[in-house]
């Protein structure tokens, strides 16, 4: 019997024959924490009296969730993390570098790697063929110390992609459709594995959006094969040497297969307060929106900002709808400036935030008031996430977000293309 991507990678890293259901100990290629989970990770590391980091060069701290620090408590946390980085020699990505998952994709993740992060959206790196998963601070602290962890090898669900996106339809619409279909616990303890002829039209930025939200279906990982598209991306990032081809065996065993035809997809929105609560954007016309947020590890990439700029060019945002944009990394910000997107968006009335998580989790840079509604390109719309528990969060693609910013109500981007 052949192996799924998860079984292949976990076999390689455990040095054995890893099959779904097995419990294995694996070597970890990269372990990280960010600024809201890092302090507890460091405290657990200290509580364990561990001698030092197993691999300082494979250990990273990212400053993205509250960056720059919005208050003195978080400033103290940042100081605590910088001190730990100085003492241990781990990698540090300080404020302004960008969102951890985007930086991992740009600079660190390789096909076949095992990556663990104290952040649930660590699954993002599955886009490059890495077995990447989120863990808590204790688990990550132990990986910092030992360079390894244990996993139950997950069963896999195959997502078979065909076709290609129509105008105004993006990777976000694909993944929202998938979660609406299988549910917020449709893949709990399992891996989602993407395949099919439609993959060739999904570039790495699209794959990052999809893998990022695997966890919103409960998945342990969202895995793409490492193919020609991956190779091109790594080569553009000047990391050709990091590429290795990786594919599931043809006779691998899957719990089930879900078929998705990209050509048939329409702009989709998740309604408050669950990601699985999806509807078509056109069905929600008339829903007033006070804030539009484009950014995050889900949709803060150059292609996302480009999609918004294309729609906003020469137009103005609706006067009573705020438009907040946060590029996911410094590289993206520079590229967006170079391409003229930032100029276009600021002229349209957008506010540009520094690279980082920005408004996503209610800490700063766009906190919502009670009764307000936000259309966000992030991955979560849980009650209370962006500030007031009486606020309403809708999730959509950057194109849907830009269209909504123009009209002040949820709008199918195909109406304004």
């Amino acid at each position: 019997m052949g192996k799924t991507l998860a079984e292949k990678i976990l076999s390689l890293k455990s040095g054995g024959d890893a099959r779904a259901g097995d419990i294995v100990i694996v070597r970890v290629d990269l372990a990280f924490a960010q600024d809201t989970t890092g302090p507890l990770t460091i405290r657990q590391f200290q509580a364990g009296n561990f001698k030092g980091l197993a691999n300082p060069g494979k250990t990273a701290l990212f400053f993205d969730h509250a960056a720059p620090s919005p208050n003195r408590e978080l400033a103290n946390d940042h100081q605590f993390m910088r001190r730990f980085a100085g003492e241990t020699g781990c990698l540090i990505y300080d404020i302004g570098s960008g969102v951890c998952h985007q930086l991992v994709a740009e600079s660190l993740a390789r096909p076949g790697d095992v990556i663990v992060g104290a952040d649930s959206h660590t699954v993002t790196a599955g886009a490059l063929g890495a077995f990447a998963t989120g863990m808590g601070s204790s688990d990550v602290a132990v990986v910092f110390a030992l360079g390894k962890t244990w996993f139950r090898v997950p069963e896999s669900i195959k997502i078979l992609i065909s076709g290609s996106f129509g105008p105004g339809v993006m990777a976000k619409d694909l993944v929202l459709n998938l979660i609406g279909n299988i549910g917020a616990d449709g893949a709990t303890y399992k891996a989602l594995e993407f395949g099919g002829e439609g993959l060739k039209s999904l570039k790495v930025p699209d794959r990052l959006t999809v893998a990022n939200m695997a966890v919103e279906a409960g998945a342990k990982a969202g895995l793409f094969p490492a193919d020609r598209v991956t190779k091109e991306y790594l080569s553009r990032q000047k990391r050709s040497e990091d590429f290795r081809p990786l594919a599931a065996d043809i006779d691998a065993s899957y719990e089930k297969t879900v078929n998705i035809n990209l050509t048939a997809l329409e702009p989709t929105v998740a309604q408050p307060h669950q990601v699985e609560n999806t509807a078509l954007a056109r069905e929600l016309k008339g829903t007033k929106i006070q804030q539009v947020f484009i950014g995050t590890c889900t949709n803060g990439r150059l292609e996302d900002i480009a999609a918004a700029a294309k729609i906003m060019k020469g137009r103005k945002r609706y006067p009573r709808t705020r438009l907040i944009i946060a590029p996911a990394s410094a590289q993206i910000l520079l590229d967006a400036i170079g391409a003229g997107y930032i100029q276009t968006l600021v002229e349209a009335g957008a506010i540009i935030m520094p690279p980082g998580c920005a408004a996503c989790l209610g800490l700063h840079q766009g906190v919502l008031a009670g009764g307000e509604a936000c259309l966000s390109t992030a991955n979560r719309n849980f009650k209370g996430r962006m500030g007031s528990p009486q606020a309403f969060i809708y999730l959509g693609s950057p194109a849907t977000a830009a269209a909504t910013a123009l009209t002040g109500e949820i709008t199918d981007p195909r109406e304004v293309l």
Partner: protein
Amino acid sequence: MLKGKAFKFGDNISTDHIIPGRFAYLRSNLPELAKHVMEDADPDFAGKVSKGDFIVGGGNFGLGSSREHAPLVIKMAGVSAILAKSVARIFFRNAINLGLPVLICDTDGINDGDELEVDLAGGTVYDKTSGEKLTFSRLPEVMLDILDEGGLVPYIQKYGDFKL
């Protein structure tokens, strides 16, 4: 034997219900953070819960963030175990890593306020109020060992490594 009162919640209780991201600035001040436990699911929970009580969820309890502060503030509130029909995987692992038992069982018959007795070793829940007896699924060996040591860090301190 664990004994206490059931605090019943519905399906899909997320880590933002348990301890919202907007309180991240309190994460290095745990006593203050813990005052907000379950705030967005039940604003009065912190004042009502007593040592030994149980949180009883529906499906997909603990979905969302990897923040270990979620099971941590539940543990700090004195909750002796979480019972749910299913639990999101990161939350599940985090709770065990802190020595907080998570028991997967059919919680539909348990009502808010029911008096429960949990036999961890025997794998049973007795609802004294309804008279119903439930069984829960056994955890993998590695998780039982971690739970036995009171969490992952004490477990690694004792054994120096994972023992499988």
